[in-house]
């Protein structure tokens, strides 16, 4: 009986030790007072894939497949630094931003791939933004038509300039209206960011 009690005592000590060892690594508890908003900055923008400038209307017969209104794709990859200034880890729930070529908003990009950022560390997030001439044409026409007209240009001229200039990093590409949502405990902070590259 006594031997059994000793065994049980050892088992309990082991369980408590395991429990406490978990607590040993615990960091400061997030509170409304000590939860600082993480900082998001644009590290770089890479022209991940460029295919030149071209556009085919659906009146043109393709070599294979069905005709459609299609234009050259352009794939831009944005790398952000996400710095956690807190003494506890934070969860980045999502990150979104608008992309503008010169002063024309053309895309809204987001990622919902959540990630933990350790206390005091900086993670990097890479987000691809896909553009194509057709989609950007339509977006530009409904959001920037009057502005282009006022500037004495038109959508086609602007698209050609961007599709040929951006692969050479000659046209400024802006990240605007950026917002990243962070959680710590049951609290939420939203970091805002904007930048232009190059």
């Amino acid at each position, binding site marked *: *009986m006594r031997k*059994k*009690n000793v065994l*049980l005592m050892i*088992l*309990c000590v082991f*369980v*408590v030790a395991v*429990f406490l060892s978990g607590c040993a690594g615990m960091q400061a508890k997030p509170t409304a007072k000590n939860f600082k908003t993480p900082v998001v900055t644009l590290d770089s923008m890479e022209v991940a894939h460029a295919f030149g400038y071209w556009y085919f209307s659906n009146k043109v017969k393709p070599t294979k497949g069905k005709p459609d209104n299609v234009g050259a794709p352009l794939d831009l990859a944005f790398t952000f630094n996400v710095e956690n200034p807190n003494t506890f880890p934070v969860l980045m729930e999502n990150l979104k931003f608008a992309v503008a070529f010169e002063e024309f908003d*053309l*895309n*809204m990009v*987001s990622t*919902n791939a959540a990630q933990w950022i350790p206390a005091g560390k900086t993670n990097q997030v890479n987000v691809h933004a896909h553009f194509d001439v057709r*989609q*950007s044409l*339509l*977006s530009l*026409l*409904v*959001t920037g*038509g*009057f502005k282009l*007209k006022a500037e004495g240009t038109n959508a086609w001229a602007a698209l050609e300039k961007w599709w040929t200039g951006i692969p050479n990093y000659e046209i400024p590409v802006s990240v*605007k*209206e*950026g*917002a990243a*949502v962070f959680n710590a405990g049951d609290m*939420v902070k*939203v970091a*805002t*960011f*904007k930048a232009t590259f190059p």
Partner: protein
Amino acid sequence: MFNRSIWSKFLTFMFAVILIMGFSSMAGAADIRVGSLNDMTGATSDVGKDYALGIAEAIHYINDTGGINGKKIKLYQFDYGYRIPEALTKYNLFKRLKCVAILGWGTGDTEALAPTVARDKIPYVSASYSGHLCKPEKTPYNLFFATDYSTQSRGLITAWYRKKWPTKPDYNKRKPRIAMCYMFASPFSSASIKAAKDQAKMLGFEIGPDQDVSLFAIDVKSQILTLKEFKPDVLLHTNTVMSVAATLRDSYALELGADNLIKCWGFDENLPKLAGKAAEGAIGCAPWAFFGLDVPLMDKVVEYAKKYNPGIPLEKRTVHTVQGWASALGLAEALKRADKVGDLSGPSILKNGFETMKGYEIGLGIAPATFTATDHRSQSEAKIYEYKSGKFTLIDEVDLKKEWPDKWANEWLGW
């Protein structure tokens, strides 16, 4: 014996604690998955971006206020750039992700997906308010929280006929004249034209030649010059805001002299910014209150806009944010009702959720919503606003069901 009992209780307690701690990380597994298909970059991005922001902010609000009976919504929100093939691809992804319902977008993709949605039995709450989606025997899983386009058009024409026509010099001397400006090839723009003409005919209008105005138009002079021959008293516009602004500008510049009636997607806070003086006196249908107006829940809409998108100035936010909220809150209510009976399958969300709503009040200035098994027109009321002196003012509320109960019940459903 006593010691043994204490020890066994202690051990049981410790193992229970360990089990609870170990499984606490799985709490998220109970999330309810919802897909959201939005246009933030394509042909309707002038209105679609703000709607998409509203959806995401509303889901945050729903989760912060108890979720779906304690379960959180996990939102999968994708941009499809208003490309129908991509909408189909995203829809298939939502199915793979086991989304219980979808918050959809435009008329083109919503109508294209309707048969698939019906086959898959997935509730699809769209931002297309096409009257074609309201007949459950054809499109049982399509729903929305708004006055449908046909009811909007009928309401606009009726309100103008009552409020404005009697003030015109030719009142009682001849028939009022109306013409319609829209993109012929767009299912969205042309969705309510048949109903609009039916209403105009019923009220005794003379109907002029339709004008094909592209959604991307910035120059509408030739159409306005054609209309000058007809001399309309009023124009009905069913495009989105930029092309409506272009039409108003050219109509003003060429002194057409007609009043303007505008369906919901062409009548927002950006219209006066784009059309300037030409927007003065424009009349539009808005089933929801404009952003920031003093109506129930608007404080939350503004609070969440500030909280989750602080980089976007509030003056850039529009009524489309409120629309996004209406869709998300309406769906959440249906999910709560279905969840209460323990069944979140598509048929249950439809029958135990949406179709149990009888005069359900969302807030946000929206008329109460009712769905039945035979009629998915959630509202029969068209709220008519006038833009004057920098303000949107409610000038009329036309309840089509009350005014024409027989036609509402027997003739107008589904178109």
